[in-house]
């Protein structure tokens, strides 16, 4: 910020430079005297001068600078996503089954073989119970399967609704963001057009004056 006369008085040669034939000291004395006279006559206050000095230009924003504020929230990490990068999917998780090994595995194999030998006898002994249980299991299975199917259908339906809503929300936010962006751009355009109209008005006025001046010159 430029120094104000009250804040920091400085030597005259600091403020201006000129040819040696020009008396810079005398110029500075006159300048100071004139400013003092104006101040004393109450024509201006130092605060008013400071306000003018501090006034900054307020340029219209460039519409290219209007940012898409929702994007990072709506699509987090999308910018970083690389093509070919495999996304996580629960259905693709592979489960590994542990196989027996060593003595434990050998015992397991022997027991399986004994069970195979004894299996016809056991089956004979438990057949009635087995049939009954089988029938019961089938009935239970059918009942459960029906329920599961029904639940799955419901889940699928609600899942569809949730996903659809999620997309709608995204679209709505995007539409809102685009509307704000477009409105901002329109506002900037509007301001620029106002400036252009002002410029045209000034030019028109100037041309009218000029026309009158030419007429005066011609008919004088």
């Amino acid at each position: 910020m430029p120094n104000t006369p009250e804040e920091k008085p400085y030597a005259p040669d600091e403020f201006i430079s000129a040819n040696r034939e020009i008396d810079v000291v005398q110029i500075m004395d006159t300048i100071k005297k004139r400013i003092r006279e104006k101040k004393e006559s109450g024509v201006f206050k130092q605060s008013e001068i400071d306000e003018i000095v501090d006034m900054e230009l307020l340029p219209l924003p460039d519409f290219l600078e209007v940012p898409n504020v929702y994007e990072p929230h709506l699509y987090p990490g999308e910018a970083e996503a690389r093509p070919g990068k495999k996304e996580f999917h629960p259905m693709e998780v592979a489960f590994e089954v542990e196989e027996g090994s060593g003595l434990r595995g050998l015992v397991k194999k022997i027991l399986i073989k004994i069970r195979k030998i004894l299996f016809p006898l056991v089956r004979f002994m438990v057949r009635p119970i087995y049939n009954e249980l089988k029938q019961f299991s089938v009935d239970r299975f059918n009942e459960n399967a029906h329920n599961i199917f029904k639940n799955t259908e419901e889940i699928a339906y609600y899942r569809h609704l949730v996903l659809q809503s999620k997309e709608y929300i995204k679209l709505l936010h995007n539409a809102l963001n685009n509307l704000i962006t477009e409105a901002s751009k329109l506002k900037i355009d509007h301001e620029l057009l106002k400036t252009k109209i002002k410029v045209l008005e000034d030019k028109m006025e100037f041309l009218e004056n000029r026309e009158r001046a030419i007429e005066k010159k011609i008919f004088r």
Partner: protein
Amino acid sequence: MKVHQFLTSYSYGDAIGNEALEIRDFLRDRGHDSEIFALFYHPRYADQIINYLEYDKFSSPDNVIIFHFSIGSPVTKKFLRAPDKKVIIYHNITPHEFFLDYHRVLAKDCYKGRVELKNLVGKVDLALGDSVYNESELREVGFTETGVVPLVMNFEKFQQEIVPALEELFDDGKTNILFVGRIIPNKMVEDVVKIFHLYQELFNPNSRLFIVGEYRGFERYYSALLNLVGELRVKNVHFTGHIPDEELISYFKLSHLYLHMSEHEGFCAPIPESFYLNIPVVAYNAGAVKETMNNGGILVNQKDFIRVSALIDHILTDSPLKEQIIRSQEKALKKYLKNKTGKILLDHLQRL
């Protein structure tokens, strides 16, 4: 000797373009073949300027090409690929920071320009600056073969009469203060407006400010300036926009003082032009301004607006002081006479 010139752009009224034309005419007068090649040029000059891509037809290792360097552009590549002897005249590049808020493309071109300048080191036979300030930048970048050629200017054009309509409109007893230059942020036109406002409010209500210069491409800056004028309620501020030479000369002739508050200048042609027309100059000491002033006019070292406005009032109301300033300007002007600067250039070229 065939001496051709390369330019990035030639717009009507542009100081660098005008210099190129003056150099061409000066060289032709002395029997040298000379043409100007440019990337962009005003249709008005279509018969005088050749597209730079056609240079291959003219190129020869015996020729000299002078490249007026002031911004990054594809012309640099073409210039470097030519087998001719190479000279650059560096007109300085406005620091890109000035344009960041207003014109990103230009900011980028200015940034690129400085990168391209570094790339030219060791690839040109001679690097000239149109001021010692520009030459010192060339040396800082790494050029070893350097020199100074003040801008070649033609003051004869100022001998024409004032446009009658403008005379009728503006020669009305008001004190006219002039600023000439493109309406771009580094020129600090807002400071000119503020100083004029203080001058008008405190010292001379019967005054007018001419702001003469192109604003296309910087509409946002121009619009901000108009808002400032509106907020301050400054009266009689006249933005002319881009005008033909005869009107520019009229505005000079109708003005009582030239005020320049720019914070970056590689040369500043309106200062010697004002000197020529005996208009007292008050200019802020930035870039090459001090050197261009050459001890003429009044150089302001600090942006103290109220003091500058009082200084303007003092100059315009004290005739002996005004006379002293004009005399100092007449002495300073001798440096810029066409034959003198043209000869300096020719001497440099003969060194090659």
